[in-house]
């Protein structure tokens, strides 16, 4: 085990000039959810991962990858 889902949400969000709250609004979740996914505290469902990737204009595979 020891695998974790890493992501580049923060990096991509910065490129688009979006705050966590603005991204959350686009996806239809709270800022708290974006915060926990971004920090790797929470592993999102496939649905949320696809929505996040869509809102950030990248593929899911580019936004998320498995580490470890």
């Amino acid at each position, binding site marked *: 085990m020891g695998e974790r889902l890493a992501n580049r949400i923060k990096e991509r969000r910065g490129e688009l000039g979006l705050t966590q709250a603005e991204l959350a*609004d686009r996806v239809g*979740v709270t800022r*708290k*959810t974006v915060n926990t996914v971004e920090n790797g*505290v929470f592993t999102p469902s496939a649905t949320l991962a696809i929505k996040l990737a869509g809102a950030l204009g990248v593929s899911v595979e580019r936004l998320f990858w498995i580490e470890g």
Partner: protein
Amino acid sequence: MNSRSAAERAEALGRRRARVLPFLAILLIAQQGTFFSNHPGADRPVDHFKIAAWLVLSAVILFALWTGGSWLQPKPVRELLNDETTQVHRAQAFRTAFLASMLGCIFLYFLTIWTHVDAREAVHIIMTIGLSAALLSFGYLERRAHRGE
């Protein structure tokens, strides 16, 4: 209500909920102090009222944890207040509560070897352990999730 104001409202209510949960656990535990300090022999109308108040509070907390609460909020706010992380946190809180309740049962089993524990006392102890564990766990997870940006 537009989506922006719903998000802002949900954010504020979510933070408040995370702050209130531990205090609810303390209130629940404090009610047990009142119950056990008057027990046994608590048979006056006021004692029955106190027990009923505890039971109502416990049922409301259980129902709120089960359904996600915020019943008086508009649907968009309610949905945001019960989004994916919150649902996972509630599920985790119920797992913690189940484990704590079972450990409470084991504790009571051994306690009855040395002292008499009547059914009502046992119900009070197990429900309080379970609900307090759920509230504290849910509160901790929500506070952690709100931290930082």
